[in-house]
């Protein structure tokens, strides 16, 4: 199958009559079954937490060391974190994302958080093993092959060391970030991860505000990225946790915000959904509503970040009921989101069989 051509082709006419309401769409058994599976997780309410200013790496394009969130004092008291998480639980937070700069450097804080809110994920560079007692999902960032990592992240044998540490660990999923420069390397990296039994999903580099460096995508590299994602999804269906619609949504020339309207407080000043509940805490346990989003300091006009999409696309169910195929695409996206972020949720086979353009969701918002 020529995936490149298929990815670039316009949406085909649907084979079945186009329903227009959710009840009609849910009459299809495959859709009803998957909707019931993912709906069990609608209760997840997320917030994110920078755990420490410290990191063992200094990577080009790092989100954490952009902006002023690094200019703070770490709170290193596990009791203080425990108190914060008790308060978070009380206000309805059920899912936590522990990020910047490198959470693996503060395992005692991770343990305290896990004891209070046991559903969540940790963003790590994967070079320091997180204790097995911390049962969160672990996202291990991969920015290319070892040569590229040495240049961009100044770490030798990075992928080799990451695999050594996390091979066979059910908590771990590797996150390959496509930049403008590393698209061709993805085949080799994913092949190596798959050969070692590691799960992998994809991210797309999203520039921070003011960044115009060599990692920023162009329309041409976004198209190349999409074709590569689809090729890898087909080649490694067991190891690559992704869907056709994920690839389309994250490589469109429009950003996620422009396509779907970001619901995070930074763009959504309303008191509904994430606009009401989401907070992004710094490592001193303070938060600022105006700055709150999943990847602060990202240029919203360039945002294609996988973490952002996990909330932005999933929240827009109402924009995906123009047809059964469009809803299947959305279900594949939500299924992927759960498999990537929720420990113990296994990816189901994707339902979507035809390309669905993200711009359809933009049209149905009007």
């Amino acid at each position, binding site marked *: 199958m020529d995936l490149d051509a298929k990815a670039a082709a316009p949406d085909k006419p649907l084979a079945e009559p186009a329903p227009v309401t959710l009840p009609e769409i849910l009459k299809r058994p495959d859709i009803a079954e998957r909707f019931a599976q993912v709906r069990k997780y609608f209760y997840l309410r997320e917030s994110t937490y920078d755990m420490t200013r410290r990191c063992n790496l200094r990577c080009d394009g790092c989100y954490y060391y952009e902006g002023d969130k690094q200019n703070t004092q770490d709170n290193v008291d596990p009791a203080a974190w425990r108190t914060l998480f008790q308060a978070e639980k009380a206000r309805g937070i059920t899912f936590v994302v522990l990020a910047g700069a490198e959470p693996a450097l503060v395992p005692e804080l991770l343990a305290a958080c896990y004891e209070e809110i046991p559903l969540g994920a940790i963003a790590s560079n994967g070079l320091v093993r997180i204790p097995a007692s911390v049962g969160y999902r672990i996202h291990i960032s991969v920015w290319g092959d070892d040569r590229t990592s040495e240049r961009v992240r100044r770490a030798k044998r990075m992928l080799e060391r990451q695999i050594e540490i996390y091979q066979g660990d059910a908590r771990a999923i590797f996150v390959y970030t496509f930049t403008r420069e590393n698209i061709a390397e993805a085949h080799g990296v994913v092949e190596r991860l798959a050969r070692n039994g590691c799960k992998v999903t994809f991210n797309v580099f999203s520039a921070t505000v003011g960044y115009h460096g060599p990692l920023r995508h162009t329309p041409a590299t976004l198209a190349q990225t999409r074709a590569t994602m689809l090729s890898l999804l087909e080649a490694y269906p067991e190891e690559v946790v992704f869907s056709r619609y994920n690839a389309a949504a994250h490589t469109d020339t429009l950003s996620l915000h422009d396509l779907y309207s970001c619901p995070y407080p930074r763009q959504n000043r*309303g008191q509904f*959904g994430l606009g009401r509940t989401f907070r992004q805490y710094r490592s001193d346990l303070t938060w600022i509503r105006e700055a709150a989003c999943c990847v602060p300091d990202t240029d919203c006009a360039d945002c294609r970040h996988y973490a952002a999409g996990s909330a932005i696309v999933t929240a827009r*169910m*109402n924009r995906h009921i123009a047809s059964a195929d469009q809803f299947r695409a959305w279900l594949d996206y939500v299924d992927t989101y759960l498999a990537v972020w929720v420990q113990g949720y296994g990816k189901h086979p994707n339902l979507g069989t035809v390309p669905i353009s993200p711009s359809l969701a933009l049209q149905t918002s009007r």
Partner: protein
Amino acid sequence: MERRIAEILIQELKLENVTPDTFDVNTDLVKELGIDSMDLTTVVLVLQGEYKVKFDEDTYPSLTTVRAIADQIRQLQSTVS
């Protein structure tokens, strides 16, 4: 209409200890019942099918009570007709 909306809410969200007849149409669905935005979106999409109207996404945050939902549906129906 309010009774039917309450019935759909109870059915879709599997609410317990309440019936369509006892459902207070002024109960705040988000603040008092803790209904998540995704569940509210599901209910809205079911109601769209039931009443053949299309809610503007921007109005979702205001759909916090059965009465508010019913008023919105009536307004949409009057606009259509």
